[in-house]
Protein backbone atom coordinates (compact mmCIF):
# COMPACT_ATOMS: atom_id res chain seq x y z
CA UNK A 1 0.00 0.00 0.00
CA UNK A 2 1.32 3.34 -1.03
CA UNK A 3 -0.59 5.48 1.35
CA UNK A 4 1.62 8.55 1.37
CA UNK A 5 1.09 9.01 -2.35
CA UNK A 6 -2.66 8.49 -2.08
CA UNK A 7 -2.69 11.01 0.66
CA UNK A 8 -0.80 13.55 -1.40
CA UNK A 9 -2.84 12.77 -4.47
CA UNK A 10 -6.19 12.99 -2.90
CA UNK A 11 -5.36 15.97 -0.78
CA UNK A 12 -4.12 17.83 -3.81
CA UNK A 13 -7.44 17.33 -5.52
CA UNK A 14 -9.66 17.62 -2.49
CA UNK A 15 -12.01 20.50 -2.52
CA UNK A 16 -10.86 20.83 1.06
CA UNK A 17 -9.31 24.07 -0.04
CA UNK A 18 -12.58 25.61 0.99
CA UNK A 19 -10.71 28.18 3.01
CA UNK A 20 -11.95 26.80 6.30
CA UNK A 21 -9.42 26.02 9.02
CA UNK A 22 -9.65 22.74 10.87
CA UNK A 23 -12.19 23.25 13.61
CA UNK A 24 -13.91 26.09 11.74
CA UNK A 25 -17.58 26.00 10.93
CA UNK A 26 -18.27 23.85 7.82
CA UNK A 27 -21.99 23.25 8.02
CA UNK A 28 -24.58 25.08 10.06
CA UNK A 29 -28.16 23.83 10.18
CA UNK A 30 -30.59 26.39 11.59
CA UNK A 31 -34.12 25.70 12.82
CA UNK A 32 -34.88 23.15 10.13
CA UNK A 33 -38.43 21.82 9.98
CA UNK A 34 -39.61 19.24 7.51
CA UNK A 35 -43.00 17.63 7.21
CA UNK A 36 -44.67 15.27 4.79
CA UNK A 37 -48.31 16.22 4.63
CA UNK A 38 -49.35 16.28 8.27
CA UNK A 39 -46.43 14.22 9.51
CA UNK A 40 -43.61 16.20 11.06
CA UNK A 41 -40.35 14.42 10.32
CA UNK A 42 -38.06 17.09 11.71
CA UNK A 43 -39.04 19.99 13.91
CA UNK A 44 -36.88 22.98 14.53
CA UNK A 45 -33.51 21.28 14.62
CA UNK A 46 -30.24 23.20 14.72
CA UNK A 47 -26.69 21.89 14.91
CA UNK A 48 -23.35 22.45 13.29
CA UNK A 49 -20.53 20.39 11.83
CA UNK A 50 -16.98 21.60 12.21
CA UNK A 51 -14.24 21.13 9.69
CA UNK A 52 -12.26 17.94 10.22
CA UNK A 53 -14.47 16.31 12.82
CA UNK A 54 -16.50 13.13 12.86
CA UNK A 55 -20.01 14.10 13.82
CA UNK A 56 -22.53 11.41 14.68
CA UNK A 57 -26.28 11.75 14.42
CA UNK A 58 -28.01 9.14 16.55
CA UNK A 59 -31.48 8.41 17.80
CA UNK A 60 -34.11 5.67 17.89
CA UNK A 61 -35.81 4.50 14.69
CA UNK A 62 -37.96 7.17 13.11
CA UNK A 63 -36.14 9.98 14.88
CA UNK A 64 -35.56 11.82 11.60
CA UNK A 65 -31.86 11.05 11.13
CA UNK A 66 -32.01 9.99 7.50
CA UNK A 67 -34.44 12.82 6.75
CA UNK A 68 -31.82 15.19 8.13
CA UNK A 69 -29.17 13.79 5.77
CA UNK A 70 -31.63 14.06 2.91
CA UNK A 71 -32.15 17.70 3.73
CA UNK A 72 -28.41 18.35 3.83
CA UNK A 73 -27.70 16.77 0.44
CA UNK A 74 -30.74 18.26 -1.26
CA UNK A 75 -33.06 15.25 -1.61
CA UNK A 76 -35.61 16.90 0.68
CA UNK A 77 -36.49 20.55 0.80
CA UNK A 78 -37.34 21.70 4.33
CA UNK A 79 -40.34 23.98 4.85
CA UNK A 80 -38.54 26.12 7.37
CA UNK A 81 -35.01 26.93 8.39
CA UNK A 82 -31.78 27.49 6.57
CA UNK A 83 -28.56 25.67 5.89
CA UNK A 84 -25.17 27.33 5.68
CA UNK A 85 -22.48 25.25 3.99
CA UNK A 86 -18.97 26.61 3.54
CA UNK A 87 -20.21 30.06 4.35
CA UNK A 88 -22.94 29.97 1.71
CA UNK A 89 -26.50 30.11 2.88
CA UNK A 90 -29.24 28.22 1.11
CA UNK A 91 -32.74 27.14 1.82
CA UNK A 92 -32.92 24.23 -0.55
CA UNK A 93 -30.91 22.93 -3.46
CA UNK A 94 -30.98 20.13 -5.98
CA UNK A 95 -28.82 17.06 -5.22
CA UNK A 96 -26.34 17.66 -8.03
CA UNK A 97 -25.78 21.19 -6.77
CA UNK A 98 -24.97 19.79 -3.34
CA UNK A 99 -22.46 17.50 -5.04
CA UNK A 100 -20.96 20.49 -6.81
CA UNK A 101 -20.38 22.11 -3.45
CA UNK A 102 -18.62 19.03 -2.12
CA UNK A 103 -21.20 16.94 -0.31
CA UNK A 104 -21.02 13.18 -0.87
CA UNK A 105 -23.08 10.47 0.77
CA UNK A 106 -23.78 6.80 1.14
CA UNK A 107 -27.13 5.19 1.77
CA UNK A 108 -28.75 3.11 4.44
CA UNK A 109 -29.68 0.42 1.96
CA UNK A 110 -26.78 0.26 -0.43
CA UNK A 111 -27.53 2.27 -3.56
CA UNK A 112 -25.02 1.12 -6.14
CA UNK A 113 -25.25 0.68 -9.89
CA UNK A 114 -25.70 -3.06 -9.70
CA UNK A 115 -25.05 -3.89 -13.32
CA UNK A 116 -21.77 -1.99 -13.41
CA UNK A 117 -18.35 -3.07 -12.18
CA UNK A 118 -16.73 -1.81 -8.99
CA UNK A 119 -14.41 0.32 -11.09
CA UNK A 120 -17.23 1.92 -13.10
CA UNK A 121 -19.25 2.51 -9.96
CA UNK A 122 -16.42 4.40 -8.35
CA UNK A 123 -15.72 6.24 -11.62
CA UNK A 124 -19.25 7.67 -11.55
CA UNK A 125 -18.16 9.46 -8.39
CA UNK A 126 -15.84 11.51 -10.58
CA UNK A 127 -18.68 12.78 -12.81
CA UNK A 128 -18.77 16.21 -11.27
CA UNK A 129 -14.98 16.54 -11.37
CA UNK A 130 -14.65 15.67 -15.05
CA UNK A 131 -15.03 18.91 -16.85
CA UNK A 132 -13.73 18.38 -20.36
CA UNK A 133 -16.46 18.98 -22.86
CA UNK A 134 -18.52 16.46 -24.69
CA UNK A 135 -16.81 17.07 -28.00
CA UNK A 136 -13.46 15.83 -26.73
CA UNK A 137 -15.16 13.03 -24.87
CA UNK A 138 -16.68 11.77 -28.07
CA UNK A 139 -13.38 11.83 -29.86
CA UNK A 140 -11.77 10.03 -26.92
CA UNK A 141 -8.69 11.98 -27.61
CA UNK A 142 -6.70 14.97 -26.51
CA UNK A 143 -7.70 16.57 -23.22
CA UNK A 144 -10.52 14.15 -22.53
CA UNK A 145 -8.22 11.13 -22.78
CA UNK A 146 -5.61 12.51 -20.41
CA UNK A 147 -8.43 13.57 -18.12
CA UNK A 148 -9.92 10.08 -18.08
CA UNK A 149 -6.50 8.62 -17.35
CA UNK A 150 -5.95 11.07 -14.52
CA UNK A 151 -9.29 10.21 -12.96
CA UNK A 152 -8.67 6.50 -13.39
CA UNK A 153 -5.44 6.92 -11.43
CA UNK A 154 -7.30 8.54 -8.56
CA UNK A 155 -9.92 5.82 -8.61
CA UNK A 156 -7.24 3.11 -8.56
CA UNK A 157 -5.75 4.82 -5.50
CA UNK A 158 -9.11 4.68 -3.77
CA UNK A 159 -9.49 1.02 -4.70
CA UNK A 160 -6.06 0.32 -3.17
CA UNK A 161 -6.95 2.30 -0.10
CA UNK A 162 -10.15 0.35 0.49
CA UNK A 163 -8.42 -2.97 -0.29
CA UNK A 164 -10.89 -3.99 -2.97
CA UNK A 165 -8.44 -4.62 -5.84
CA UNK A 166 -9.67 -8.19 -6.24
CA UNK A 167 -13.21 -7.12 -7.12
CA UNK A 168 -12.38 -4.27 -9.51
CA UNK A 169 -14.07 -5.90 -12.48
CA UNK A 170 -16.90 -7.66 -10.66
CA UNK A 171 -20.43 -6.37 -11.21
CA UNK A 172 -21.30 -5.06 -7.78
CA UNK A 173 -24.69 -6.80 -7.75
CA UNK A 174 -22.76 -10.04 -7.22
CA UNK A 175 -20.77 -8.85 -4.22
CA UNK A 176 -21.52 -9.66 -0.58
CA UNK A 177 -23.18 -6.90 1.39
CA UNK A 178 -20.12 -5.83 3.35
CA UNK A 179 -18.10 -5.30 0.19
CA UNK A 180 -20.97 -3.41 -1.46
CA UNK A 181 -20.92 -1.00 1.46
CA UNK A 182 -17.20 -0.55 0.91
CA UNK A 183 -17.65 0.13 -2.81
CA UNK A 184 -20.29 2.67 -1.93
CA UNK A 185 -17.84 4.38 0.40
CA UNK A 186 -15.32 4.32 -2.44
CA UNK A 187 -17.73 6.04 -4.78
CA UNK A 188 -18.36 8.75 -2.21
CA UNK A 189 -14.61 9.17 -1.63
CA UNK A 190 -14.04 9.49 -5.37
CA UNK A 191 -16.03 12.69 -5.20
CA UNK A 192 -13.33 14.13 -2.94
CA UNK A 193 -15.97 15.68 -0.75
CA UNK A 194 -15.44 18.29 1.92
CA UNK A 195 -18.37 16.77 3.78
CA UNK A 196 -19.03 13.05 3.71
CA UNK A 197 -22.44 11.84 4.87
CA UNK A 198 -22.61 8.18 5.88
CA UNK A 199 -26.01 6.67 6.54
CA UNK A 200 -25.51 3.61 8.74
CA UNK A 201 -22.18 2.56 7.22
CA UNK A 202 -22.08 -0.55 9.41
CA UNK A 203 -25.64 -1.76 9.22
CA UNK A 204 -25.86 -5.50 8.72
CA UNK A 205 -22.12 -6.10 9.10
CA UNK A 206 -20.37 -8.68 11.23
CA UNK A 207 -17.80 -7.66 13.82
CA UNK A 208 -14.81 -8.02 11.52
CA UNK A 209 -16.45 -5.97 8.76
CA UNK A 210 -17.39 -3.31 11.29
CA UNK A 211 -13.82 -3.07 12.44
CA UNK A 212 -12.61 -2.70 8.87
CA UNK A 213 -15.17 -0.03 8.13
CA UNK A 214 -14.31 1.86 11.34
CA UNK A 215 -10.67 1.80 10.35
CA UNK A 216 -11.46 3.20 6.90
CA UNK A 217 -13.63 5.94 8.35
CA UNK A 218 -10.91 6.99 10.79
CA UNK A 219 -8.25 6.92 8.08
CA UNK A 220 -10.36 8.96 5.71
CA UNK A 221 -10.93 11.48 8.45
CA UNK A 222 -7.36 11.67 9.70
CA UNK A 223 -5.33 11.25 6.54
CA UNK A 224 -7.47 13.13 4.06
CA UNK A 225 -8.92 15.55 6.56
CA UNK A 226 -12.44 14.79 5.32
CA UNK A 227 -15.22 15.97 7.57
CA UNK A 228 -17.71 13.18 8.23
CA UNK A 229 -21.27 13.20 9.48
CA UNK A 230 -22.58 9.72 10.14
CA UNK A 231 -25.69 7.94 11.33
CA UNK A 232 -25.09 4.72 13.20
CA UNK A 233 -26.95 2.46 15.59
CA UNK A 234 -23.99 0.61 17.05
CA UNK A 235 -23.34 2.68 20.18
CA UNK A 236 -19.89 1.20 20.76
CA UNK A 237 -18.81 2.33 17.30
CA UNK A 238 -20.42 5.75 17.67
CA UNK A 239 -18.79 6.46 21.03
CA UNK A 240 -15.38 5.37 19.74
CA UNK A 241 -15.45 7.14 16.39
CA UNK A 242 -17.13 10.44 16.87
CA UNK A 243 -15.88 13.74 18.19
CA UNK A 244 -19.34 15.08 18.84
CA UNK A 245 -22.81 13.57 18.80
CA UNK A 246 -26.23 15.02 18.16
CA UNK A 247 -29.20 12.99 19.41
CA UNK A 248 -32.62 13.16 17.77
CA UNK A 249 -35.89 11.71 18.99
CA UNK A 250 -39.27 12.07 17.29
CA UNK A 251 -37.86 14.75 15.01
CA UNK A 252 -36.55 16.88 17.86
CA UNK A 253 -33.03 17.42 19.10
CA UNK A 254 -32.66 16.14 22.64
CA UNK A 255 -28.92 16.33 23.17
CA UNK A 256 -25.74 17.58 21.54
CA UNK A 257 -22.18 17.25 22.72
CA UNK A 258 -19.13 15.06 23.27
CA UNK A 259 -19.68 11.29 23.64
CA UNK A 260 -19.23 11.49 27.42
CA UNK A 261 -21.91 14.14 27.87
CA UNK A 262 -24.35 12.37 25.62
CA UNK A 263 -23.81 9.03 27.32
CA UNK A 264 -24.76 10.48 30.68
CA UNK A 265 -27.61 12.66 29.46
CA UNK A 266 -30.86 11.61 31.13
CA UNK A 267 -33.04 12.52 28.11
CA UNK A 268 -30.93 10.31 25.87
CA UNK A 269 -31.12 7.39 28.28
CA UNK A 270 -34.89 7.83 28.46
CA UNK A 271 -35.25 8.01 24.72
CA UNK A 272 -33.35 4.78 24.22
CA UNK A 273 -34.64 2.80 27.17
CA UNK A 274 -38.11 4.25 27.34
CA UNK A 275 -39.55 6.00 30.34
CA UNK A 276 -42.82 5.41 32.18
CA UNK A 277 -45.24 8.26 31.59
Amino acid at each position, binding site marked *: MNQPSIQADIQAGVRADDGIEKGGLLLQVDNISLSFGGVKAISNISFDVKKGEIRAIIGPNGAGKTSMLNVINGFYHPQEGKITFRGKERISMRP*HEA*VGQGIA*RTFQNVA*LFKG*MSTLDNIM*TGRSELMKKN*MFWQMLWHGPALSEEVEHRTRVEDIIDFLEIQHIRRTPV*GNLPYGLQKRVELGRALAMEPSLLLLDEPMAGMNLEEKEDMSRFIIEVNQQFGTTIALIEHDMGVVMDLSDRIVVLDYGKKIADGAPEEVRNNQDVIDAYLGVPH
Partner: protein
Amino acid sequence: MDVLHKILVAPFIDMAAAPDFLMQVLWEGLVSGVLYALIALGFVLIYKSSRIFNFAQGIMVVFAALTLVGLHEKGVPALLAVPLTLVVMFVLAVAIERVVLRPLVNQPDVILFMATIGITLFLIGFGEMIFGGENKVMITEQLMIPTGAYTFEPFGGFLLIEQKDLTAVVGAGILVLVLLVFLNRSKMGRAIRALGDDHQAALSVGISLSTIWVLVWFIAGIIALATGIVWGARAGVSFALEVIAFKALPVLMLGGLESVTGAIVGGLAIGVLEKLFEIYWGQPLMGGNTETWFAFVFALIILLFRPQGLFGEKIIERV
Protein backbone atom coordinates in the same frame (compact mmCIF):
# COMPACT_ATOMS: atom_id res chain seq x y z
CA MET B 1 -39.93 -37.19 -46.53
CA ASP B 2 -41.23 -34.88 -49.17
CA VAL B 3 -42.12 -32.23 -46.61
CA LEU B 4 -38.74 -32.52 -44.93
CA HIS B 5 -37.07 -32.19 -48.31
CA LYS B 6 -39.05 -29.05 -49.03
CA ILE B 7 -38.10 -27.51 -45.69
CA LEU B 8 -34.55 -28.68 -45.18
CA VAL B 9 -33.07 -29.17 -48.62
CA ALA B 10 -34.94 -27.42 -51.42
CA PRO B 11 -34.46 -23.85 -50.14
CA PHE B 12 -30.71 -24.30 -50.03
CA ILE B 13 -30.65 -25.75 -53.51
CA ASP B 14 -32.54 -22.65 -54.65
CA MET B 15 -30.00 -20.42 -52.93
CA ALA B 16 -27.07 -22.18 -54.54
CA ALA B 17 -28.75 -22.20 -57.94
CA ALA B 18 -29.14 -18.41 -58.03
CA PRO B 19 -26.47 -16.82 -55.86
CA ASP B 20 -27.07 -13.39 -57.40
CA PHE B 21 -30.69 -13.50 -56.27
CA LEU B 22 -29.59 -14.64 -52.83
CA MET B 23 -27.32 -11.61 -52.63
CA GLN B 24 -30.19 -9.37 -53.61
CA VAL B 25 -32.35 -10.86 -50.87
CA LEU B 26 -29.58 -10.46 -48.32
CA TRP B 27 -29.07 -6.83 -49.31
CA GLU B 28 -32.78 -6.01 -49.04
CA GLY B 29 -32.83 -7.72 -45.65
CA LEU B 30 -29.81 -5.78 -44.52
CA VAL B 31 -31.41 -2.46 -45.44
CA SER B 32 -34.58 -3.27 -43.47
CA GLY B 33 -32.37 -4.56 -40.69
CA VAL B 34 -30.55 -1.23 -40.45
CA LEU B 35 -33.88 0.52 -39.98
CA TYR B 36 -35.04 -1.94 -37.33
CA ALA B 37 -31.74 -1.47 -35.55
CA LEU B 38 -32.12 2.32 -35.60
CA ILE B 39 -35.59 2.20 -34.10
CA ALA B 40 -34.55 -0.36 -31.51
CA LEU B 41 -31.63 1.88 -30.60
CA GLY B 42 -34.03 4.69 -29.77
CA PHE B 43 -35.90 2.37 -27.42
CA VAL B 44 -32.73 1.05 -25.81
CA LEU B 45 -31.28 4.47 -25.04
CA ILE B 46 -34.37 5.65 -23.25
CA TYR B 47 -34.85 2.35 -21.47
CA LYS B 48 -31.24 2.27 -20.29
CA SER B 49 -31.38 5.68 -18.74
CA SER B 50 -34.84 5.66 -17.24
CA ARG B 51 -36.34 2.15 -17.37
CA ILE B 52 -39.11 3.64 -19.45
CA PHE B 53 -40.36 1.63 -22.39
CA ASN B 54 -40.92 4.47 -24.82
CA PHE B 55 -44.02 3.64 -26.78
CA ALA B 56 -43.71 7.00 -28.54
CA GLN B 57 -40.53 6.10 -30.47
CA GLY B 58 -42.57 5.21 -33.57
CA ILE B 59 -44.55 8.41 -33.61
CA MET B 60 -41.37 10.39 -33.04
CA VAL B 61 -40.12 8.97 -36.33
CA VAL B 62 -43.28 10.16 -38.07
CA PHE B 63 -43.22 13.50 -36.31
CA ALA B 64 -39.58 14.16 -37.24
CA ALA B 65 -40.17 13.22 -40.88
CA LEU B 66 -43.35 15.31 -41.05
CA THR B 67 -41.59 18.31 -39.54
CA LEU B 68 -38.80 18.02 -42.07
CA VAL B 69 -41.13 17.73 -45.06
CA GLY B 70 -43.52 20.30 -43.61
CA LEU B 71 -40.78 22.87 -43.14
CA HIS B 72 -39.65 22.30 -46.69
CA GLU B 73 -43.22 22.81 -47.96
CA LYS B 74 -43.28 26.14 -46.13
CA GLY B 75 -40.32 27.19 -48.26
CA VAL B 76 -37.39 26.40 -45.98
CA PRO B 77 -34.43 25.06 -48.00
CA ALA B 78 -33.96 21.35 -47.40
CA LEU B 79 -30.48 21.58 -45.94
CA LEU B 80 -31.68 24.21 -43.48
CA ALA B 81 -34.78 22.22 -42.66
CA VAL B 82 -32.68 19.40 -41.20
CA PRO B 83 -31.03 21.45 -38.43
CA LEU B 84 -34.36 23.19 -37.82
CA THR B 85 -36.04 19.82 -37.39
CA LEU B 86 -33.34 18.89 -34.91
CA VAL B 87 -34.15 22.04 -32.98
CA VAL B 88 -37.80 20.99 -32.94
CA MET B 89 -36.82 17.53 -31.67
CA PHE B 90 -34.74 19.17 -28.94
CA VAL B 91 -37.65 21.35 -27.88
CA LEU B 92 -39.81 18.23 -27.86
CA ALA B 93 -37.30 16.46 -25.60
CA VAL B 94 -37.24 19.37 -23.18
CA ALA B 95 -41.04 19.58 -23.20
CA ILE B 96 -41.45 15.86 -22.55
CA GLU B 97 -39.01 16.00 -19.66
CA ARG B 98 -40.68 19.03 -18.08
CA VAL B 99 -44.32 18.21 -18.64
CA VAL B 100 -44.45 14.43 -18.56
CA LEU B 101 -41.41 12.82 -16.99
CA ARG B 102 -40.49 15.19 -14.18
CA PRO B 103 -43.91 15.16 -12.51
CA LEU B 104 -43.95 11.37 -12.76
CA VAL B 105 -40.53 10.73 -11.24
CA ASN B 106 -40.61 7.77 -8.83
CA GLN B 107 -43.92 6.51 -10.19
CA PRO B 108 -44.05 2.81 -11.14
CA ASP B 109 -42.57 2.03 -14.55
CA VAL B 110 -45.92 1.06 -15.97
CA ILE B 111 -47.29 4.55 -15.26
CA LEU B 112 -44.45 6.07 -17.24
CA PHE B 113 -45.04 3.55 -19.99
CA MET B 114 -48.67 4.65 -20.18
CA ALA B 115 -47.55 8.26 -20.18
CA THR B 116 -45.55 7.53 -23.34
CA ILE B 117 -48.74 6.15 -24.91
CA GLY B 118 -50.22 9.52 -24.02
CA ILE B 119 -47.31 11.24 -25.75
CA THR B 120 -47.98 9.08 -28.82
CA LEU B 121 -51.64 10.06 -28.98
CA PHE B 122 -50.79 13.70 -28.41
CA LEU B 123 -48.19 13.74 -31.17
CA ILE B 124 -50.60 12.08 -33.61
CA GLY B 125 -53.20 14.78 -32.97
CA PHE B 126 -50.70 17.61 -32.83
CA GLY B 127 -48.95 16.43 -36.00
CA GLU B 128 -52.21 16.18 -37.91
CA MET B 129 -53.27 19.61 -36.74
CA ILE B 130 -50.09 21.24 -38.00
CA PHE B 131 -49.13 19.19 -41.03
CA GLY B 132 -52.47 17.69 -42.05
CA GLY B 133 -53.24 14.01 -42.28
CA GLU B 134 -52.44 13.33 -45.93
CA ASN B 135 -49.42 11.38 -47.06
CA LYS B 136 -46.32 13.27 -48.05
CA VAL B 137 -43.29 12.50 -50.14
CA MET B 138 -39.88 12.56 -48.49
CA ILE B 139 -37.68 15.29 -49.96
CA THR B 140 -35.02 12.80 -50.94
CA GLU B 141 -33.50 14.70 -53.83
CA GLN B 142 -33.50 18.05 -52.07
CA LEU B 143 -31.49 16.45 -49.28
CA MET B 144 -28.96 15.47 -51.94
CA ILE B 145 -29.50 11.78 -51.36
CA PRO B 146 -28.66 10.09 -54.65
CA THR B 147 -31.58 8.22 -56.18
CA GLY B 148 -29.92 6.20 -58.91
CA ALA B 149 -28.95 2.56 -58.71
CA TYR B 150 -25.83 0.49 -59.19
CA THR B 151 -26.09 -2.76 -61.01
CA PHE B 152 -23.64 -5.58 -60.64
CA GLU B 153 -23.37 -8.90 -62.34
CA PRO B 154 -22.06 -11.33 -59.74
CA PHE B 155 -21.88 -14.96 -60.80
CA GLY B 156 -23.11 -13.90 -64.21
CA GLY B 157 -26.42 -12.83 -62.68
CA PHE B 158 -27.93 -9.51 -61.73
CA LEU B 159 -27.76 -7.44 -58.55
CA LEU B 160 -29.36 -4.04 -58.10
CA ILE B 161 -28.34 -1.74 -55.30
CA GLU B 162 -30.25 1.50 -54.99
CA GLN B 163 -28.09 4.45 -54.09
CA LYS B 164 -30.51 5.73 -51.47
CA ASP B 165 -30.40 2.37 -49.71
CA LEU B 166 -26.64 2.48 -49.80
CA THR B 167 -26.70 6.01 -48.39
CA ALA B 168 -29.05 4.84 -45.66
CA VAL B 169 -26.81 1.97 -44.65
CA VAL B 170 -23.65 4.09 -44.63
CA GLY B 171 -25.36 7.00 -42.88
CA ALA B 172 -26.90 4.79 -40.22
CA GLY B 173 -23.55 3.08 -39.74
CA ILE B 174 -21.83 6.40 -39.07
CA LEU B 175 -24.59 7.52 -36.73
CA VAL B 176 -24.42 4.31 -34.74
CA LEU B 177 -20.62 4.45 -34.58
CA VAL B 178 -20.65 7.98 -33.19
CA LEU B 179 -23.30 6.98 -30.69
CA LEU B 180 -21.38 3.92 -29.54
CA VAL B 181 -18.21 5.88 -28.99
CA PHE B 182 -20.17 8.49 -27.08
CA LEU B 183 -21.88 5.95 -24.84
CA ASN B 184 -18.84 3.85 -24.07
CA ARG B 185 -16.17 6.45 -23.86
CA SER B 186 -17.69 9.46 -22.20
CA LYS B 187 -18.77 10.22 -18.68
CA MET B 188 -22.21 11.00 -20.13
CA GLY B 189 -22.44 7.43 -21.33
CA ARG B 190 -21.54 6.19 -17.87
CA ALA B 191 -24.08 8.59 -16.39
CA ILE B 192 -26.78 7.22 -18.70
CA ARG B 193 -26.07 3.67 -17.55
CA ALA B 194 -25.86 4.76 -13.91
CA LEU B 195 -29.16 6.55 -14.03
CA GLY B 196 -30.92 3.46 -15.32
CA ASP B 197 -29.56 1.43 -12.42
CA ASP B 198 -30.43 3.61 -9.46
CA HIS B 199 -31.89 7.11 -9.59
CA GLN B 200 -31.13 8.01 -6.02
CA ALA B 201 -27.53 6.93 -6.17
CA ALA B 202 -27.06 8.71 -9.49
CA LEU B 203 -28.38 11.92 -7.99
CA SER B 204 -26.04 11.58 -5.04
CA VAL B 205 -22.95 11.51 -7.24
CA GLY B 206 -24.01 14.64 -9.03
CA ILE B 207 -25.69 13.24 -12.13
CA SER B 208 -28.54 15.54 -13.04
CA LEU B 209 -31.66 13.58 -13.82
CA SER B 210 -33.22 16.24 -16.01
CA THR B 211 -30.08 16.89 -18.08
CA ILE B 212 -29.60 13.22 -18.88
CA TRP B 213 -33.27 12.67 -19.66
CA VAL B 214 -33.37 15.59 -22.05
CA LEU B 215 -30.15 14.32 -23.60
CA VAL B 216 -31.40 10.77 -24.23
CA TRP B 217 -34.77 11.94 -25.54
CA PHE B 218 -32.95 14.31 -27.86
CA ILE B 219 -30.66 11.53 -29.08
CA ALA B 220 -33.77 9.39 -29.59
CA GLY B 221 -35.15 12.33 -31.59
CA ILE B 222 -32.04 12.45 -33.79
CA ILE B 223 -32.33 8.72 -34.39
CA ALA B 224 -36.03 9.20 -35.15
CA LEU B 225 -35.22 11.82 -37.79
CA ALA B 226 -32.62 9.58 -39.41
CA THR B 227 -35.09 6.69 -39.44
CA GLY B 228 -37.81 8.97 -40.78
CA ILE B 229 -35.70 10.17 -43.68
CA VAL B 230 -34.62 6.68 -44.68
CA TRP B 231 -37.98 5.00 -44.25
CA GLY B 232 -39.80 7.97 -45.73
CA ALA B 233 -37.61 7.77 -48.82
CA ARG B 234 -38.68 4.16 -49.30
CA ALA B 235 -42.33 4.30 -48.38
CA GLY B 236 -43.46 7.91 -48.14
CA VAL B 237 -44.24 9.89 -45.02
CA SER B 238 -47.53 9.10 -43.33
CA PHE B 239 -48.86 8.24 -39.91
CA ALA B 240 -48.86 4.61 -41.00
CA LEU B 241 -45.09 4.75 -40.49
CA GLU B 242 -45.81 4.63 -36.79
CA VAL B 243 -46.34 0.88 -36.90
CA ILE B 244 -42.70 0.31 -37.77
CA ALA B 245 -42.12 0.85 -34.08
CA PHE B 246 -43.69 -2.56 -33.56
CA LYS B 247 -41.06 -3.98 -35.87
CA ALA B 248 -38.56 -3.03 -33.20
CA LEU B 249 -40.24 -5.11 -30.48
CA PRO B 250 -38.87 -8.49 -31.58
CA VAL B 251 -35.50 -6.82 -32.04
CA LEU B 252 -35.63 -5.73 -28.41
CA MET B 253 -36.76 -9.17 -27.29
CA LEU B 254 -33.85 -10.63 -29.16
CA GLY B 255 -31.19 -8.09 -28.30
CA GLY B 256 -32.17 -7.27 -24.75
CA LEU B 257 -33.63 -3.96 -23.68
CA GLU B 258 -30.41 -2.54 -22.25
CA SER B 259 -27.97 -3.42 -24.97
CA VAL B 260 -26.94 -1.09 -27.77
CA THR B 261 -24.99 -3.92 -29.39
CA GLY B 262 -28.07 -6.08 -29.01
CA ALA B 263 -30.23 -3.56 -30.83
CA ILE B 264 -27.80 -3.40 -33.73
CA VAL B 265 -27.08 -7.11 -34.04
CA GLY B 266 -30.72 -7.98 -33.34
CA GLY B 267 -32.00 -5.49 -35.90
CA LEU B 268 -29.67 -6.68 -38.64
CA ALA B 269 -30.31 -10.34 -37.84
CA ILE B 270 -34.06 -9.97 -37.92
CA GLY B 271 -34.00 -7.87 -41.09
CA VAL B 272 -31.94 -10.43 -42.95
CA LEU B 273 -33.54 -13.56 -41.51
CA GLU B 274 -37.13 -12.47 -42.07
CA LYS B 275 -36.34 -11.66 -45.70
CA LEU B 276 -34.59 -14.98 -46.25
CA PHE B 277 -37.43 -16.85 -44.58
CA GLU B 278 -40.06 -15.04 -46.62
CA ILE B 279 -38.40 -15.70 -49.95
CA TYR B 280 -37.16 -19.25 -49.48
CA TRP B 281 -39.62 -20.75 -47.02
CA GLY B 282 -42.60 -18.42 -46.65
CA GLN B 283 -43.57 -17.92 -50.26
CA PRO B 284 -43.11 -21.44 -51.59
CA LEU B 285 -44.46 -23.25 -48.51
CA MET B 286 -46.91 -20.93 -46.77
CA GLY B 287 -48.16 -18.58 -49.42
CA GLY B 288 -46.00 -15.67 -48.25
CA ASN B 289 -46.67 -12.74 -45.95
CA THR B 290 -44.54 -14.28 -43.23
CA GLU B 291 -42.68 -11.05 -42.55
CA THR B 292 -45.44 -9.83 -40.27
CA TRP B 293 -44.95 -12.59 -37.74
CA PHE B 294 -41.61 -14.26 -38.40
CA ALA B 295 -39.61 -11.87 -36.21
CA PHE B 296 -41.81 -12.46 -33.18
CA VAL B 297 -41.70 -16.22 -33.48
CA PHE B 298 -37.95 -16.14 -33.96
CA ALA B 299 -37.49 -13.88 -30.93
CA LEU B 300 -39.72 -16.13 -28.80
CA ILE B 301 -37.67 -19.18 -29.70
CA ILE B 302 -34.48 -17.37 -28.72
CA LEU B 303 -36.07 -16.24 -25.47
CA LEU B 304 -36.77 -19.85 -24.55
CA PHE B 305 -33.05 -20.36 -24.30
CA ARG B 306 -31.89 -16.92 -23.18
CA PRO B 307 -34.61 -15.14 -21.20
CA GLN B 308 -32.55 -11.94 -20.93
CA GLY B 309 -32.14 -11.76 -24.70
CA LEU B 310 -28.89 -12.25 -26.55
CA PHE B 311 -27.09 -9.30 -25.01
CA GLY B 312 -29.24 -8.26 -22.05
CA GLU B 313 -27.71 -7.61 -18.68
CA LYS B 314 -28.04 -10.61 -16.46
CA ILE B 315 -28.21 -9.28 -12.95
CA ILE B 316 -27.97 -11.80 -10.19
CA GLU B 317 -29.77 -10.50 -7.15
CA ARG B 318 -28.46 -11.64 -3.80
CA VAL B 319 -31.37 -12.25 -1.52
